[in-house]
């Protein structure tokens, strides 16, 4: 395929805007992804991740702003962009009546690749993704994890230098997710530039070198996972209150020790407070809670996770929002006209 200029950036977006009716799905988004990196686009449902990916992969035209992939303008030369990139969407975009092999060879032929190459490459990918045994079975007999791997294989058939993965592990069981992670890590070792969207903070933490956090259509923070955690600062004191004790008493006691806002989850009876002062704070916390007459199930001190980053940046937890804007009124694969 086309060899991109290694000096430039793989993906650049400048002030992208996309509305759906009154909803601003993408609202002045900027993005720069260097070649050869794994870039995580992190945010809750409705943050604009999918819309951004759809613009970058030529499936949607932005209302305004500019974007290039491998230096090629996505609005002016969509066909050339399609030649250098691969896309694996949120839902497996494969034909379930065709076999795994037929799916790959169809996509290879539509990439306009030579017949012999498509044959060889399909066999290689099926082998690599542990699908060789299922190659001649219709896809409708595949498990969810197998479908995702086949979908990913289809995106890789033309050896794209830039790969877009839109929530590649959403809906997968933990084992399949682990497998996907391994596959993605291999790709990166291979030099492919990957833009990955996810609502799983753990996933971004594990795979992406650089993370951009977006909310309501624009970037609210970016950096490496460590940088983001440092940005939030300090440690986290996490306390689980015994069911016999009063949650409000406990949070009042902890608020006095915290550096910032204390968050409280009434269901799990968990209180999280940003703190500093290392292990001595643990002792102080236990003493304060004891004075308040609160008994504990658990208490711990930890480094901030990306969840904490999200909470401190947006004022709400990632998963909370995900649950609120629970999507699909329109069935699989057609969330495109929704807010995201």
């Amino acid at each position, binding site marked *: 395929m086309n060899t991109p200029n290694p000096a430039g950036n793989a993906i650049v977006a400048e002030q992208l805007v996309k509305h759906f009716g009154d909803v601003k799905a993408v609202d002045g988004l900027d993005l720069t992804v260097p070649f050869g990196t794994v870039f995580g686009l992190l945010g809750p449902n409705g943050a604009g991740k999918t819309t951004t990916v759809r613009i970058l992969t030529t499936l949607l035209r932005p209302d305004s702003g500019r974007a290039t992939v491998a230096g090629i303008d996505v609005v002016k030369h969509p066909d050339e962009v399609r030649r250098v990139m691969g896309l694996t969407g949120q839902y497996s975009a494969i034909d379930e009546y065709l076999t795994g092999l037929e799916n790959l060879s169809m996509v290879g032929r539509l990439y*306009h690749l030579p017949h012999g190459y498509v044959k060889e490459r399909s066999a290689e990918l099926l082998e690599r993704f542990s699908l060789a045994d299922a190659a001649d079975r219709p896809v409708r007999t595949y498990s969810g994890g197998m479908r995702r791997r086949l979908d990913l294989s*289809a995106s890789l058939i033309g050896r794209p230098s830039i790969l877009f993965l839109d929530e590649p592990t959403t809906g997968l069981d933990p084992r399949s997710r682990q497998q996907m992670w391994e596959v993605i890590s291999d790709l990166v070792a291979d030099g492919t530039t990957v833009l990955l969207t996810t609502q799983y903070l753990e996933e971004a933490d594990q795979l992406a070198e650089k993370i951009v956090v977006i909310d309501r259509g624009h970037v609210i923070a970016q950096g490496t996972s460590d940088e983001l955690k440092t940005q939030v600062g300090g440690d986290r004191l996490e306390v689980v209150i015994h069911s016999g004790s009063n949650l409000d008493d406990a949070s009042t006691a902890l608020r006095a020790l915290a550096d910032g806002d204390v968050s409280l989850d009434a269901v799990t009876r968990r209180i999280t407070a940003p703190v500093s002062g290392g292990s001595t704070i643990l002792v102080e916390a236990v003493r304060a809670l004891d004075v308040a007459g609160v008994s504990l199930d658990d208490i711990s001190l930890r480094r901030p996770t990306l969840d904490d980053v999200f909470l401190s940046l947006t004022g709400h937890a990632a998963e909370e929002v995900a649950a609120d804007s629970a999507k699909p009124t329109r069935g699989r694969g*057609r969330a495109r006209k929704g807010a995201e």
Partner: protein
Amino acid sequence: MATTPAPEQMKRPMFGWLLHDGFVVTQRNLIATTRVPEVLFFSLVQPVIFVLLFAYVFGGAIPIPGADPAAGAAAYREYLMPGIFGQTVAFASAASTVGLAEDMQKGIIDRFRSLPMAASAVLFGRTASDVLRQVLVLAVLSVTGLIVGWRIHNGFIDAVCAYLLLLLFAYAVSWIGCWIGLHMPNTETANTAGLVWLFPLTFLSNAFVPLTGMPPVVQTIAEWNPVSAVVLACRELFGNPTGYISDAWPQQHPIAYTVGSCGLLILIFATLAVRKYRQSA
């Protein structure tokens, strides 16, 4: 990770790729058909049931003007078969509507749109495969017709022309079906919307009853309905009873009108559908 070296994409003129990609999509649709034989089976059963119902329930009650009264129900069956052919191929468009809606809902259209393929190949492949399926449907129907007493009287060439006209008509309505399918939010809606317009289209025609019994306004609509033209053309080409032929131009020149109206429909709806496909996002 891979050992196969990165390939060069092949070079071909744009039109060559449209044919190539259209062929790939057609092949994919036809393979999918063979994987769900139930769907194909029931799409064959339905017109056969129509033949039997019309031939044996309505047959004796509908006199065919100009046919020998002594022939009675037998004449109606000869009259009926081209009507059933016309109605059945019209329903090919519903397959296009549902097929496209399903591909959109499952995200396959997104996959196609992210590939450097000729965009309209998805639509050309869809209409081509839906028409090719009609070849099988027409074969099964013809055999059914022969069993109930329908015959081809005018020789091989005329019969081939009749079948080609039917396929041309199927191709035209298949493009209308595509255009409808691209507007569908999901397959459930497509299942209904793909069918509703076909009932007035096929019944406001000479497919099952002669035009003579219709009120004037309805008769005029039926005279200009392309279904009436293709059905009348088939009756003439097969040598079956034609019933009453009015003075309206499409009735006097059914073959020319079929070719002309189908050409116009293809031009209009292929343009609309391709434009909608490129925009839809």
